[in-house]
């Protein structure tokens, strides 16, 4: 299993004739993604690498029954591309574009929420479910299918972590980059809830960075609603306050959003934090082993109810598949 994307994902590439769009459309197709079409206004009827081009999203969706769009258009056009995709009826939009004005994102976010469309990004590498589908720009060569979910605000740092996992023999269900901007469509909690509900995911790696308080919120969520172990990493411990560290969202403002606060929040939720990305596989193996040990020790009825509070677990025994469902409900 995987989350958000799988073999049923049918993708339209918005901005398919651009440099990045055409390259990555081809890369996605080669990886096995069902890329059914592309959109570039004025170029409808042509083909790129065998992929048909349409003038509008509405035409593309009508002709291909696509359920997903991935956006590679320049920042000045990205907002319009998101609206167009949502209005054409796709249920998942992945916006790779970096440099989208934050104020433009605010109304879009609320519009999509109202429409029931999921947005990932902007300013993100997209996502990949190994051996099934990749939507975005993550290199297909570094992933391997397995039981670990990966969620991150970053791009290359995520690759580093994924590669470390793969080298250690730990494959992934889905790896997802949620984006480095201030206003993003899907946050840590949304993703964690989906991993919790996915039976194939056994543990999650969560890679955060300075800026905002999404990591702190996620830590609370993990403690309260997740039965699966999570290992964390926080980038930006050496970042000075008030400076934007590359990502629009990576800034310590008014003394809040520091790495220290986030590491502390993880600690308080019992989430081990890696000092280096290369340390992540070892921590994952440790939390998985600890969980197994607990599962052996505890009677099977109570094992799924909560890893950190056996007392609570005893009070509310639940059969195994339920916690996932409960967690999902809570997150909505």
């Amino acid at each position: 299993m995987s989350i958000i994307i799988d073999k049923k994902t049918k993708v339209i590439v918005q901005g398919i004739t651009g440099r990045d769009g055409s390259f990555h459309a081809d890369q996605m197709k080669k990886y096995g993604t069902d890329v059914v079409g592309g959109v570039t206004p004025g170029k409808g009827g042509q083909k790129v690498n065998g992929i048909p081009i349409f003038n509008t999203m509405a035409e593309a969706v009508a002709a291909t029954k696509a359920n997903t769009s991935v956006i590679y258009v320049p920042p000045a056009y990205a907002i319009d591309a998101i609206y167009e995709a949502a209005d054409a009826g796709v249920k998942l939009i992945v916006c790779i574009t970096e440099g989208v004005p934050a104020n433009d994102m605010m109304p879009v976010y609320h519009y999509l929420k109202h429409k029931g469309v999921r947005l990932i990004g902007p300013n993100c590498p997209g996502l990949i479910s190994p051996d099934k589908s990749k939507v975005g720009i993550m290199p297909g060569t570094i992933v391997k299918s397995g039981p670990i979910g990966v969620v991150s605000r970053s791009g290359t740092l995520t690759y580093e972590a994924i590669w470390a996992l793969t080298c250690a023999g730990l494959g992934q269900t889905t790896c997802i980059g949620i984006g480095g901007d201030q206003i993003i469509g899907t946050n840590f909690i949304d993703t964690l809830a989906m991993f919790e509900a996915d039976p194939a995911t056994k543990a999650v790696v969560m890679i955060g960075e300075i800026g905002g308080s999404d990591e702190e919120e996620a830590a609370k969520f993990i403690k309260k609603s997740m039965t699966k172990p999570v290992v964390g990493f926080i980038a930006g411990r050496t970042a000075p306050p008030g400076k934007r560290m590359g990502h629009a969202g990576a800034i310590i403002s008014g003394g809040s959003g520091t790495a220290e606060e986030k590491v502390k929040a993880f600690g308080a939720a019992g989430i081990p934090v890696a000092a280096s990305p290369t340390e992540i596989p070892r921590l994952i193996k440790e939390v998985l082993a600890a969980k197994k040990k607990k599962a052996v020790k505890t009677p099977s009825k109570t094992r799924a109810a909560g890893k950190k509070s056996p007392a609570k677990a005893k009070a509310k025994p639940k059969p195994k598949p339920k916690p996932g469902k409960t967690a999902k409900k809570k997150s909505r």
Partner: protein
Amino acid sequence: MKIHEYQAKEIFAAHGIPVPQGEVAENVADAVAIAEKYGRPVMVKSQVHVGGRGKAGGVQYAENVEAVRVWAQKIIGMDIKGLRVNKVLITEAVDIVTEAYVGIIIDRSTKAAVIMVSAAGGIDIEEVAAKTPEKIHKLAVDPIHGLRAYQARDLASKLYRDMNLIRQAADIIMKLYKVFWAVDASLVEINPLITTPDGKVLAIDAKLNVDDNALYRHKNIAAMRDLDAEEPSEVMAREGDLSFVKLNGNIGCIVNGAGLAMATMDLVKHYGGEPANFLDIGGSSNPQKVLTAMRIILGDPNVRAILINIFGGITRCDDVANGIVMAYEELKPEVPIVVRLTGTNEKEALKILKKINLESGETLDQVVKKAIALSEAENQIAGGAA
């Protein structure tokens, strides 16, 4: 991007927000001339991109023209938290009855512009938020429907009891919200918003940060950038399309991707070193960018070693390797360089690096440790020579 108080006030005034009359001066003679023109007591306010100007002595009351001369002399050229004051704002002094705070920020969790008001203005609002959060009133404005007049009145009524003042403040809040959207601000702030003895509400300070991502459609604001107020290496980096932040350590870092760049810096610190900078060469692979990056880092006299960490995805390792070779030949670096190139076109990259006898390290931890060891050795040489 930050702009100065005098620039923010120009934008506020253009949107109808009442601000005291004022003009900016870059030298004492101009400052005096402005004061003479006004013919009444003024404030001499340093224009630098940092908070706490008043505490640092960068904001002064001048009773007469002579006082303006004295203060302008003192403040121009003064150092405030490491920044040199190049400009002063000469603005008419007003009598203050009360001081309040009004600000608008982008709120990540509600995905909306949040308006914050507090009757406890005139002081550091972060301090108020930390110590007495109940004194700050917030409203997340629905970005689709916008701010309604009654909402602005509600907020204003948290500041004043007098309906006359409430009406003026509500009007200012409405206009400030318009400014926020009109210029794609990431922050607008009036601290303090004052009342005068004759019952006027006035913005006597102004802060405005504009979203860098939106600057392409605000050429007039982009032109307000004060290059003198920025770190020269950061200006050079921006011109070269690099994300760069100068730090105080001695290990120069060149990385692709912001998250990985931060993680690399953190790891330098973790293993006992000090990073000299944050530098993200971005996703595209252009050898020229590597050359610019090397030039910026080598321009920092503190740098004792350079660490290049590339995880190739869209970035092609061979392009980066070509950039390194170019930099070697053109800049002839004297400090040791430690490289790790992994991912897309890694093999080709290693062949290119052989030309200059450079090897690529295996893991991130390994190269970080190596860079630290080399920087320490360099430090000893430098120390011995001195």
